[in-house]
């Protein structure tokens, strides 16, 4: 078990338990937003409450996750690396989009963190393109958290000015609440899923900077109304950018690659 953070009984990294024989280089810095609870006015006693004390805490439930996310963000900033957290339902075409993206980016340094409950199938697909990838198996877990991602980043030894793709567990609900330290969250929505998905699962689309509307080559076969998809996305998140893409045919891929390159360039300037 990792003695720094107590991890070891949960998710697996490429089939192994994190903390077994690893150096644990990821930053467990204890910033003001991390770990040390009770910094507010605590120990307040209230007259009339016999034997009981009222302790004011005002602490975010996700403070621990957010501390790890801040730590990941510091590591990425120091490298000038641009990280995207890819969220979607299962089967939206995330892995195929990533494989085509890696081919399209040619010599750009990049790495991939794959999140799934079980199997290393996705990491193997990514590695077949020649890219570096690490698989997180969450077991029963329904989302990635910043702590798992920190361990995966350690394992990847990111090059400066890399793109980091974090493919979250396919789930339109739970990943919305967990900051991983990414620069941008990208929601992938395929045209076979139904125009109403942004309305049914608003949280994930509210927190996304970009939506990739994927499998547009299938739109004529399933009566998909792409304008209705976009209208529903903007109803949930008026600021969201939308790109129409077919990873299979390559349509729209250029705009997606440009968006990634622009994000990386902007990160380098900041």
């Amino acid at each position, binding site marked *: 078990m990792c003695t720094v953070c107590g991890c070891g009984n949960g998710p697996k990294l490429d089939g192994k338990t994190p903390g077994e024989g690893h150096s644990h280089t990821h930053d467990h810095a204890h910033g003001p937003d991390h770990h040390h*609870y009770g910094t507010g006015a605590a*120990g307040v006693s209230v007259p009339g409450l016999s034997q009981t004390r009222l302790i004011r805490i005002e602490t*975010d439930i996700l403070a621990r996750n957010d501390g790890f996310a801040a730590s990941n963000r510091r590591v990425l900033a120091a490298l000038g690396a641009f990280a995207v957290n890819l969220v979607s339902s299962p089967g939206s075409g995330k892995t195929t989009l990533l494989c085509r993206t890696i081919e399209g980016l040619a010599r750009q340094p990049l790495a991939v963190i794959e999140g799934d409950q079980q199997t290393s199938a996705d990491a193997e697909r990514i590695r077949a393109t020649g890219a570096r990838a690490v698989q997180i198996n969450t077991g029963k877990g329904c989302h990635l958290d910043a702590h798992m991602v920190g361990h995966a980043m350690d394992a990847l030894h990111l090059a400066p000015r890399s793109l980091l793709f974090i493919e979250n567990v396919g789930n339109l609900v739970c990943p919305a609440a967990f900051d991983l330290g990414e620069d941008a969250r990208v929601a992938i929505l395929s045209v076979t899923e139904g125009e109403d998905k942004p309305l049914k699962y608003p949280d994930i689309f509210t927190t996304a900077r970009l939506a990739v509307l994927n499998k547009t080559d299938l739109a004529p076969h399933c009566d998909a109304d792409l304008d209705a998809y976009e209208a529903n996305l903007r109803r949930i998140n008026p600021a969201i950018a939308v790109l129409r893409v077919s990873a299979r045919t390559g349509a729209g891929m250029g705009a997606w690659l440009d968006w990634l390159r622009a994000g990386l360039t902007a990160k380098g300037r900041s």
Partner: protein
Amino acid sequence: MHEMSLADGIRRIVEAQAAAHGFTRVECLRLEIGRFAAVEKSALAFAFDVAMRGSPAEGARLEIIDLPGRALCHDCGETVEIGHRLAPCPRCGGGRLMPQGGDEMRIRDMEVI
């Protein structure tokens, strides 16, 4: 299902507070949950009961305080309070609203012995 992770986060905070303030039992724990927070309150209450077993908060009463949901209307430019995520702007009837807060999930206070 991530409510189990949230409950685990609450347990860690309770245990850290117990060590810091020297209490052994939590009678009541109050949470503030925003109306737009990605949390199902009944699922969290269930997870809370399970996750607190063996901790100072085992058997504690859980109270959840709702915080209002606010959003910026991209049609009239005002920040308004709305009851649910798909509600129209109460001021202009517009439908393009961006949440501004309302996603809080925090422990407010605890009554302890």
